[in-house]
Each structure stands twice: as structure tokens, then as C-alpha cells.
């Protein structure tokens, strides 16, 4: 039989209810069920989570760091999006 590597999965864990799932790392598994089980063993040995998401890495589309300029530059000169841009009298309260 042809040797084939199990696909790579990205693992996201919610550490407790009320918090978002966060990326914790990746692992190999033959299918989604095994990916969840492996994630349980690899990433939650000390009660680090209450919920696990897995997704096969190939399904993730990532931005390219080479395009960082065109993606993020436009926000740089828009200081008026921040509250501190607006100068108001010091005596003013609750605003």
C-alpha cells in the first residue's frame, strides 16, 4: 500500500465558556473525529479546554505578508477613527 501521510488539522480551543476559541496548534489525523480525539490528548491534558474545533489546514486561506502594505496601509493615516483624535474641554465628563 502506498504510504500516505495523515492530513494536517488546525486546532482551536475554547478554554472556558464566555471566551472565544483560540488557535493552539496543529496535528495529524486521518479524519475529523480522530482529529478531535487527538486534539483532546495533545492540547487538553490539563483541562485547558471545554470545546474543540478542528479544520483541515488546506481549507484555510491566509493573507500573504508580502501584501501587508496594500492590506493594512490604508488604515494607517485614519487617525480620526480613534477617540483621542477629537480635542474636547477637560471639564467635560462622561464622554
Amino acid at each position: 500500500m502506498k504510504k500516505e501521510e495523515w492530513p494536517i488539522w488546525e486546532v482551536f480551543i475554547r478554554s472556558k465558556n464566555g471566551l472565544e476559541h483560540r488557535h493552539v496548534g496543529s496535528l495529524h489525523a486521518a479524519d475529523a473525529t480522530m482529529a478531535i480525539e487527538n486534539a483532546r490528548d495533545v492540547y487538553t491534558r490539563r483541562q485547558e479546554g471545554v470545546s474543540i474545533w478542528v479544520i483541515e489546514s488546506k481549507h484555510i486561506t491566509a493573507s500573504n505578508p508580502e501584501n501587508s502594505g496594500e492590506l493594512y496601509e490604508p488604515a494607517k493615516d485614519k487617525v480620526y477613527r480613534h477617540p483621542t483624535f477629537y480635542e474636547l474641554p477637560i471639564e467635560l465628563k462622561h464622554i
Partner: protein
Amino acid sequence: MDNVKNLEDQFQARIDAGEKIEPKDWMPEKYRKTHIRQISQHAHSEVVGMLPEGNWITRAPSLKRKCTLLAKVQDEAGHGLYLYSAAETLGISRDEMYEQLHTGKAKYSSIFNYPTLSWADMGTIGWLVDGAAIINQVMLTRTSFGPYARAMVRICKEESFHQRQGYEILLILCNGTAVQKEMAQDALNRFWWPSLMMFGPPDDQSPNTAQSVKWKIKRKTNDELRQRFVDITVPQAEVLGLTIPDPDLKWNEERGHYDFGEIDWTEFWQVVKGNGPCNKERLKAKVEAWDNGEWVRDAAMAYAEKKNAQLTKAI
């Protein structure tokens, strides 16, 4: 050519500014290769490191010790997995890394080529070997490559228990019968020098150190880390009432550090080259486990494909 030079300068400027490098960022080819080598060898060390301790799981002296040892060995497997994943972000496959280990092309920490002869060795490994690993790994939590640094943070959080359980094993032996204490002393005698060798060759014989420090892969040199290990370990040996097997070991008031004797680097290089007491046994065990698991890996893959095909058909 100028273009590459320019990119390299920009890269160095990012490193100097304390920025982290992420997998998709441009990086010099040598930075990538050095990381693949270092991270995969680190991963191999975690995985091979399970073998000397696995040797004692069935013979642990109590249920408590057996649970602890199982948990520790499982952690080592986990640490190997975090590290393999970090290396994979640089474009090498898991199978390629295994292949390099199994063919002897890739190295792993020499310490695991020493045999574990008595129960006291489990204590000594936790105390000294994990202790030395912690010193190296704490430094690496600040390494410049993001995935490696993140794996190290995770590992360091888990490693402290490894060292403490080891020290506790020795504490109990050292407060036990004369024979038990002798067993602890014997383990220390065998593991002390190999533990010092874990930090790698001395700085003047480590040609890659300068570049690694410049790229902030390493934040401290081998000799600096080794000195730190000696300084914090000597008082811990005193608490146990054990004698470190080094007649030249003594506190140097002027330096504010312990002086210690000459390390036998011939032995170190012999073990690195494959002539240590257990090199062949370790590699054989690892290769056999991999080969014997092949049908399981293939069956799981075939099952996943079959289920997937059924699902596609149903749609």
C-alpha cells in the same frame, strides 16, 4: 543578488527590533534550514526521550509513581508533537523528519543514549535532564521564530512537574535506607557529566553560535547556560545530601559562580556519532514502533477515504 542582500538587511533589522518571524514571512534560506534542523532534532529528542523512561513504567514502585511516569512520558510525546508541528510550518513534512531520524541523518539529544539501570535513574533524569532542558527551553521561549517560541511556552508550562517529581523521587530515596541513598548517588554519578554535555560543545568549538545569537535563535551561549545549570543544581544536590562527582567543583567568590572540572568531550562526540551505550537500541525501538504501526496508519486512512466516498455519493 543586491535584492537578496537588501531583504537580508531588512530581515536582520526586524530581528534587531525584537520582531517575531512567522512562517510565511520572507526569511534567509539558512534561517529556515537552521530552524528545520534545530526544531526537528528537538522534537526527536522529546520522542526518543520516552524510551529510557518507558523502560520503568511497568516496574514503578507504586501506583502513584506509575501514574506520574505515564503522565510524564505522555507529556514528552505531546512535546514532540508541538515541535514537529512548528517545524512543519517551514515546509518540511512529518514523514521527512521521521525518515531523517530513522536513517540516522538527524540527531537527538545524546543524553537518551545512556541506559536507565535503576529506579533512582527516573529521579535523576527528572531532576537533571529535565532541569537542563528547562534552562535551555526557558531561553527558547524568547526565540525569534514565532511557532518555535509558542511551542516552548507550552512545553515550559508542563516541564516543571517533570523536574519536581524527579527531585521528589530522589528526596525519598535519600531519606531512606543506606542502600537507597547509595542507589541515588550512583545515578547522580552516571548522569552528572552527560547532563552537562546536554548544553552542547563549548563556545569556542561551536561555530554556529554567533549566527544563532545574531538571529536570536539562541539568546545565550552553550557555556552560559551550562554555568547557570551548575550554579542552580549544586545547592539542590546539597539538600539531597548527595555528592556531585567532580573533585574540581568549588564556589568561586570572585566570579560569583561555581568552577567545575573539564568535560570529556571525546565521550560526547563518540555518543553523538552513534557509539554511545544505547544508540542502536534506541533507534531500533523507534524504527520498529514506526514500522509496526504502518498497517494502523494505512487502515485509518482507508477508513477515512471510504467514509468520505460514501458521504460524497449520498450528496
